């Protein structure tokens, strides 16, 4: 990591949220907040709304339609075969395959979408801001450039309950 960041490290949720609100009140947006579990105020405060659920819905829709039409094409139009006296268009039996394959395609496509958006790929070196950010600590990451003249005040806020690194 070439860039320098200011980290605020806290021990519990209440103090983190408190400091977060105060920093935001100064008009500064933290680069990132690491918490051991999702905290509603932080999710809302960071102003990041995920659109991945919508993406997943459309992947599912297209996958379901695509798989059903492929099965119909294969079993009815292109190569009709008799199986156990069933009609060529054995629609109910297609549904099981469609459900399972749709779930698989949603999972994989959403995973790829997420990885692409979050710029994660296999073998990437992890960006670790703080050793215990993925453990039990609550960490706020701040960009010192965005602080400007407020940097002293922000450090005060953090020092109230946490520590600055």
């Amino acid at each position: 990591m070439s860039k320098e960041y200011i980290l605020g490290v806290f021990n519990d949720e209440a103090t983190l949220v408190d400091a977060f609100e105060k920093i935001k009140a100064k008009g500064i947006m933290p680069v990132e907040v690491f918490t051991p579990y999702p905290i509603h105020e932080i999710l809302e405060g960071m102003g990041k709304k995920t659109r991945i659920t919508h993406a997943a819905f459309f992947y599912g829709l297209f996958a379901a339609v695509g798989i059903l039409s492929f099965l119909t094409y294969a079993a009815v139009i292109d190569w009709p075969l008799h199986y156990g006296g069933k009609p060529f268009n054995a629609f109910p039996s297609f549904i099981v395959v469609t459900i399972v394959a749709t779930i698989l395609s949603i999972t994989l496509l959403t995973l790829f979408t997420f990885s692409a958006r979050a710029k994660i790929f296999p073998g990437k070196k992890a960006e670790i801001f703080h050793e215990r950010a993925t453990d039990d600590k609550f960490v706020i990451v701040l960009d010192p450039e965005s602080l400007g003249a407020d940097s002293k005040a922000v450090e005060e806020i953090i020092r109230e309950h946490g520590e600055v690194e």
Partner: protein
Amino acid sequence: MEEKVVLSGKFKLITYILIGIGVLSFALGFVFDAERTWANYLLNNYYFVSLAVGAAFFGAIQYITQSGWSALFKRVPEAMAAWFPFAAVFFILMFFGMHSIYEWTHDEVVQHDHLLQFKSPYLNIPFFFIRVVVFIGLWIIMSRLLRKLSLQEDEHGGMDYFRKSEFYSKIFIFIIAFSFSLFGVDMLMSLEPHWYSTLFAGKSFIAGLLHASSIIALIVILLSKQGYYKQMNGSHLHDFTRYIFMASIVWGYFNFAEFMLIWYGNIPEETVWFVHRWEGTYKILFFANIILNWGIPFLVLMPRKSSRSKMIILPVVLLLIIGQYTELYYIIWPATVHEAKFGLLEIGTFLGYVGLFSWVVGTALTKASLVPKNHPYLQESIHHHF
């Protein structure tokens, strides 16, 4: 936190009128078309007892999972369980209509039918009513017990009542799982005693949970429109719709699995049930069931916004109310009335039951504080937020 429901005079008047319509419809029905009336009687009895069982199950699940969010609303499932004594009376009165409804009660039919002879140790009238009494008796005892603990908790507080309720709930869900499965088989599957389906019990059970949770949501929403439940927010509604959403997916899955395996296996004893139901109105109902009970809830309640909006939940719940009716109609009518007759008799009797059910649940709601006092999770429920 003291909050008591007061039933308005208008509400009582409407329920009395509805009960009157129901009584009148039954009286006229028995005079003109007794067989069809008994089918109506069975349908409505089963419809409303499945709601009560589903609600009792819902309440027990909340104790077992130690759910925080639902503590505010636990009086609603408790009130719905007050239907059990009425259901017991109605099901016992079915004694007089057994010959009109069930084929296996006719001795001369059983004598010439090897399969029915084989089944007769289980399917005979005395044992049938012993089961009815034992099952509904168990439901009454267990739901009364939980209700009593819940009311005592209001007075004394402390964790003891919650722990006891949780323990009895664990017993209760086993009782429900076992007895309601057999109950569904007795009441509905034995209408066509030659037919087998192992999934039938599971399907009727989950249908009960699905429609009970939608009725619980309906009652809560109606109460909040009257000014009760001021602490309710979008997160509570979202949790109610999650129950509806989950149960409707499971119902859709069971319904499809039952049909698909029977269709694919193509064994005459099993397919005969669907062959009767694959023509005319019943074929329409077959698809209507899937759309009402699975398709609409699944698609409409999926987005986060719509599952938090009363304006969207209400129509879905109303469609689910129709959905349970069409499902039972689809099961009962081909076996008893044969022709798909639907008219004032069906509407009148259903309205009568709606009136009585609303009266029973409404009265039960007035008997205790609507918001429980001293429930260990009450504060968590009030601040529920996600």
